[in-house]
């Protein structure tokens, strides 16, 4: 009787271990902070574009907080040819060409990021090495930039 009880207890314990172990594992997985794994898309906006024929720029970010996943065309650049490079960590190169010229305000490109950091600091998204040329004259276009974040789009201002 006593040995049967011990045996039953051992069987129950073994079954319990089989059942509980995966549950514990699942709990561990679910503890990963949700806010650190989300995907965020950030548009790169144009302000006062006028007959913009070609544009290239680099977007600088903190790879310890986010990682770039891809670039798609923005609304303003719907007709443009777009290319990009993610080959350098913390720096995205984006190029647009539209021989018809882009005009007005709107998003030029949309960057997809994947959050990897702790999320304790809002990363700055900074625009550098902006080169722009007029679609007709091929003359350079003066630009200035406004940095952004994951929640506020960086802006390229075309001042002339």
């Amino acid at each position, binding site marked *: 009787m006593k040995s049967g009880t011990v045996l039953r207890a051992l069987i129950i314990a073994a079954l319990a271990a089989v059942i509980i172990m995966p549950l514990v594992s699942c709990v561990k997985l679910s503890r990963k902070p949700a806010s650190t794994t989300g995907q965020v898309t950030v548009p790169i906006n144009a302000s006062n574009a006028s007959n913009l024929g*070609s544009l290239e720029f680099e977007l600088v970010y903190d790879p310890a907080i986010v990682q770039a996943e891809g670039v798609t065309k923005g609304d303003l650049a719907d007709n443009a040819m777009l290319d990009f490079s993610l080959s350098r960590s913390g720096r995205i190169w984006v190029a647009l060409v539209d021989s018809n010229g882009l005009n007005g305000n709107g998003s030029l490109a949309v960057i997809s990021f994947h959050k990897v950091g702790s999320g304790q600091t809002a990363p700055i998204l900074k625009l550098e090495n902006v080169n722009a040329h007029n679609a007709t004259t091929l003359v350079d276009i*003066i630009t*200035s930039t406004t940095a952004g974040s994951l929640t506020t789009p960086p802006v390229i201002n075309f001042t002339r």
Partner: protein
Amino acid sequence: MVTTLVLALLLVSVPAVADSGLTSGFAKIKDWDETHEAFSFSSGQVAWGSGDFFISPRGIHVFESPGIIDMGLVYLDDVGEAPATGYVEMAAPVDGHTYVVRSNGKYGKFYLEETYDWLTPIQYGISWVYQTNGTRSLGSSASTGQTVTSGQTGTVADTGCTYEQYITAYNKLTSLMSQGKGDTPEAQAAYAEYAKVKACYESGSTGTGQSSTSTSTSTSTSTSTSSGTYTIPTTTTPPAIPPTSTSTASTPVTLHLTCENKDNEERGCGPFYGTHTYLFGSLYVTSVVVRFDTGRKFDCRSAVSLQVYRNGAWQTIETINAVSSSGNSEFAPLEVQVPVNDTIAGFRISDGCVCCIDFSEITIYGSQSTPQSSTTTTTSSSQTSPAAGQTFSYPPSKWVPAQDGQSAVSLGQDQICISSMKPGGAMAYTKRDYDITSDYTVEFDYMVGTDDNHWIIVYSDGYLFLIIDWGTQLSHCQTGRLPLHLEVNRWYKIRMDAYPGQGKYDVYADGVKLGTAVNLHVGFNHKLERGNLLTWLDKIYPAWDCIYLGDIDNEYFMAGRYNRGIACWKNITVRQSAGTTTSTITPVTEDPQKPGLDPSQIVSPPTTSTATTTTSTTSIPAGTALIAESRTVMTGGTVQVPIYFQDAQNIGSLGFTLSYDPAVVQVVKVSKGSLLSSATFTSSDQSGSIIFGFASPQAISGNGSAAVVEFKALGSAGSSSSLTLSEILATSYYGSSLAVSPVNGLLTIGQNQPGDADGDGKLSVLDALIALKMYVKTLPLDLIADINQDGKVTPEDARLIMQKAKP
């Protein structure tokens, strides 16, 4: 302010009734707590115990509460329409702010001109406008007190404006100012548009939710995206970041500096309104964690500029579109980290007072010694008492320039000059090392460059105060002015002997005593016998350990907006003494040369403008330069050669000659470049040289092409033509000659690498554009763009060029 006050006084108690229903006037209201005096819009009078609203140091209160909105630092005329919503019970009285009042179903607005807080009881001077017909239309600068026609006041949409409109208007205005166009009709129109959209946006943002950014009632601001939600963290403690080791590292340094003003008071610690400035001496900084908050509610958004002070100038390193309030909660600090990796001496946070920074703290990670000083209420301020007899000198290199609009500060080798004109202003300030509670003597050379000066501070340090309030006559903050009209362009040796223990100081010019200021106390916490001078010095200066020169708006600590003048200083020294100093008049030798202003030293504010980078076979010097770019083109082909202007500084006119070999290349076309697009342009091809001439009604600064020359290649393969720049005549907007370094180019006849359609020696996005244009036949075909060598230029070539252009 004085002018405004005087003009406003003419309107006292004479409300002008216009067809539009608007009445207006000026009134002085006494402190309610002391007098129970209130103001009535309908009568245009103050009355005991009744009216529409009253003012006390505690706040402005409308009897029919909630009924007031603080519109912030905007002029009365900038508020054309009363907001539909957003009224609160009470608003803090802040000089320079405009308030909208809703009372008994009608609307009015008033501008708090000045708080007369040296009077007992305190009085408040207001300019006001009242709408008697019950609408929210409150007129504009063109309509106040006059007939308002339909449409003049209806420019603000009832539905509010979007954040994009708001920030676009802001960026347009600031962009013009950064280009030195602050005094142009274009900038005035931009400011009017900005003010309109700002009022419209702020009135709508309280309840209509036009912005795409959603808000919460907590201290976080969230933005929904198509793929998730990101929350701006609002932690109260900056994250610990280990100092990065650097090649210049000596001792790791972590500085934590704070600058805090009362919420809603919105007076920044820095010399600009709503700006926080930290000066900490030269320090190699790897990164800075910045935490800041603004003094506005209702999700106030602004472009916050983060600047570092290096090489004698403030330079913007980041601009952040920030929302630093949350709903009805004013306090919603943001935190960012910015890399620096350079030696800097200061850090500044500013949003141009769109929302007005009212709290900030920065943690600096770097290496070197401990900070030298700070202009703010920092945690690391440690000023040792100077020894008696110690002399301090303040050469130009010690001063920090601050300018706005087209005004400028020049910190030359030996002198400091300001050129200030409205709108905008220019001043210089520095940390004061000496003790203003014991006797000391200040000496410096001073010169005015015009006889039209207004409110130019000659010297101010928290005890001494010397200004030119009008013309060229000195005043020392006492009744009446000092008996000296300064000659223009003549140096004077100014000396002031300060006796803080006796509450007085003496003023000398060229060894002649001009007068004595009396009844003084250190920190301006005293009641001066002021005469025509303003009084708000009392409450601002004690917070500062600085010396100020030039055009400063004391009220808001920004460069003055109404003031003007040209002045220079040099040889500024201060000798500290102990106890009573015996005044000794030193004979002064007048400078026989009487040197004039050196406008060539005047520099423009830094600009963030960028343009296409250039490729040249010649090394390009730093600073202002004119660069003829190098190109390669096949025989018979054409090529555009930009003449690139690097680091242009307040250019008013420009002439130069470009020489080429007419046997090798032929000029097809000469065009004006992008940087000088606003200038009048002419050119002449003399077969071998092109003469260029530009003249601009505005100062032009920045980088970009000055001109573009299209050449046709005549020479055989292997030949070349140098592109030589000469006879460069650059003149600043202020009339002085400017040094511009020429960088010559080379036009080579030969074969480019496939795809290099513009011949600049590299594959770029511009090459892809050229290929596309060749395909659609808007440019002549040139098989150099045929990168895949299939005998034609197609979109595929453009695509391949873009691929190869990747870094």
